[in-house]
């Protein structure tokens, strides 16, 4: 998992509420054998017509937002199925941070497993960030995980909350596997002991 420390990037405004995981990545793309490669189908049905042409109005199709790394969204982002394909698709597109007033629980957890920082902010702050995001590609928002602050393009700064263990994992790029690998010495010792005790195993 990639580290998340400080990010200054373009933020795409998506004021829609209840953006569900079916919208984020429709079910026909779940048959993939990869976690990567889903970015091209992120928001597929909102992003393309039936015959695959881009829908120009959709925010991520607009020139200003094609390289967005942050999404500022309406309430209850990521509701619906538990598919981990949703954060996989966001990450593959290049999104590292989603800011909303609320998230669906499973999606919220899945984000942390994949190096994406979901941030819950009060409605009035989300409104300020939404307006800033609407300014387009010159209005870069800065998310500083170490300091736990979001700073708008014109220098307004807002503090945010994050679970300390999850913060530690993101700052150091540690997923469960990363954390377990920190215990490699214990695993080595177990294997060495087992070689003598149960050599057939």
């Amino acid at each position, binding site marked *: 998992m990639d580290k998340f420390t400080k990010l200054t990037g373009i933020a795409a405004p998506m004021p829609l509420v209840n953006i569900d995981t079916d919208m984020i990545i429709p079910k026909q793309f779940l048959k993939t054998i990869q976690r990567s490669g889903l970015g091209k189908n992120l928001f597929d049905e909102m992003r393309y017509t039936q015959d695959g042409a881009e829908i120009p109005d959709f925010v991520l199709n607009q020139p200003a937002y094609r390289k967005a790394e942050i999404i500022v969204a309406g309430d209850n982002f990521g509701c619906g199925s538990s598919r981990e394909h949703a954060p996989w698709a966001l990450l593959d597109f290049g999104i590292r941070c989603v800011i909303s007033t609320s998230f669906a629980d499973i999606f919220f957890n899945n984000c942390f497993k994949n190096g994406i920082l979901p941030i819950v902010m009060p409605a009035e702050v989300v409104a300020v960030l939404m307006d800033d995001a609407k300014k387009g590609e010159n209005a870069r928002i800065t998310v500083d995980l170490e300091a736990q602050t979001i700073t708008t393009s014109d220098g307004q700064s807002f503090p945010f909350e994050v679970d300390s263990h999850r913060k530690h994992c993101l700052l150091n790029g540690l997923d469960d596997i990363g954390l377990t690998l920190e215990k490699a010495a214990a695993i080595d010792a177990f294997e060495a002991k087992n070689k003598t005790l149960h050599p*057939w195993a």
Partner: protein
Amino acid sequence: MTAPRTLYDKIWDDHVVHQAEDGTCLLYIDRHLVHEVTSPQAFEGLRMTGRTVRAPEKTIAVPDHNVPTTLDRVSGVIANEESRIQVEALDKNAKDFGVNYYPVSDVRQGIVHIVGPEQGWTLPGMTVVCGDSHTATHGAFGALAHGIGTSEVEHVLATQTLIQKKSKNMKVEITGSLRPGVTAKDITLSVIGETGTAGGTGYVIEYCGQAIRELSMEGRMTVCNMAIEGGARAGLIAPDEKTFAYCMGRPHAPKGAAWEAAVAYWKTLFTDEGAHFDKVITIKGEDIAPVVTWGTSPEDVLPITGTVPSPSDFTGGKVEAAQRALDYMGLTPGMKLTDIKIDTVFIGSCTNGRIEDLRAAAAILKGKKIKDGMRAMVVPGSGLVRAQAEEEGLAQIFIDAGFEWRLAGCSMCLAMNPDQLSPGERCAATSNRNFEGRQGRGGRTHLLSPAMAAAAAITGHLTDVREMMAETV
């Protein structure tokens, strides 16, 4: 002296690598079985992070869920594009990461839970995991075995450990002996009928008692296979001489002095006198009849002599569930189970796709023909089971009776390959799940034993195999 421990306690204790303050443990995994459907993203994850498989020698991969089982498979091309890609991905991942592999073309290929024991990968006292819920099968050897998700598959590939909290202990004792015509499948379905599909949630079950001891290893695998259908994390049976005899000489079982040392350890794997169980269930072996399922949950079990229940026979949420099941299954309350007509018979799966299962079915089918218009197939659990059945003359019995004699795989157990039921088609199946749509959209599944499946194939309706046995004797 240490306090008396259960079999589960002992295996658990012997695999703890690290224990955190909140009781979360890092558990060492001895065998990791891998198939094509739940592993691609895990291998991809390793690639993305530049990680390797920590113990490729303890990792065993085999394609089974998606593979066609028709004879034209030997031409080597899987017609369904998505299935083909998943199988090819496993080919490549197995090669790139250097894990043990049984490709489609290998005679040892088969359902992962049949291949593991057959090749001697599964041994008593081990921890065994697989990205598949029916990993519980391996508990028949006194191995702690359970299913895991794709993220955990990646975790095990990378670290050979799993982050786990310990479950509670449950004992299921089957006393006495089974009556003629009653099999391991009837035991395991009857237990689920007794506990319900959530009765085992939070537990590891140890099956014990005379009737369990009297089962062959194949039968014990059938019992443990469906522990998960009762909601349990795993099922276990203490190893004994039968277990050792089954393991001895298998390709990956220890040999010589190592074998002696292993057996000495395996003999310590039993529940100590006085060990604590959080829940105990006792069933008399004599009371178990050949059973079938009537509904869409494995707990919807009745003796074949019974009648279709009415929703009013139930209470709480089950009333509505029973009504929905009856509608889906197209059954009327009060109708005799033996009056239920069958269109298709499926013999196979990791529950009942082993040699003993085929022998039991063939014993009923010998010299008989399946009902006119019946569609019937046997899908052996592995290429080696298939070869052995051919050698024993069982294949010919099936073919003469009118069965299709297939190649190994999961096949109609989950209908991910082309073997599917059409809407309304009614199937007597030796597999483990009768969920809505499990064997194909709108398909209707009755779970039963291989002998009972064979009987239904002959008569065209659900049948009490004991009557047929009386005929043949």
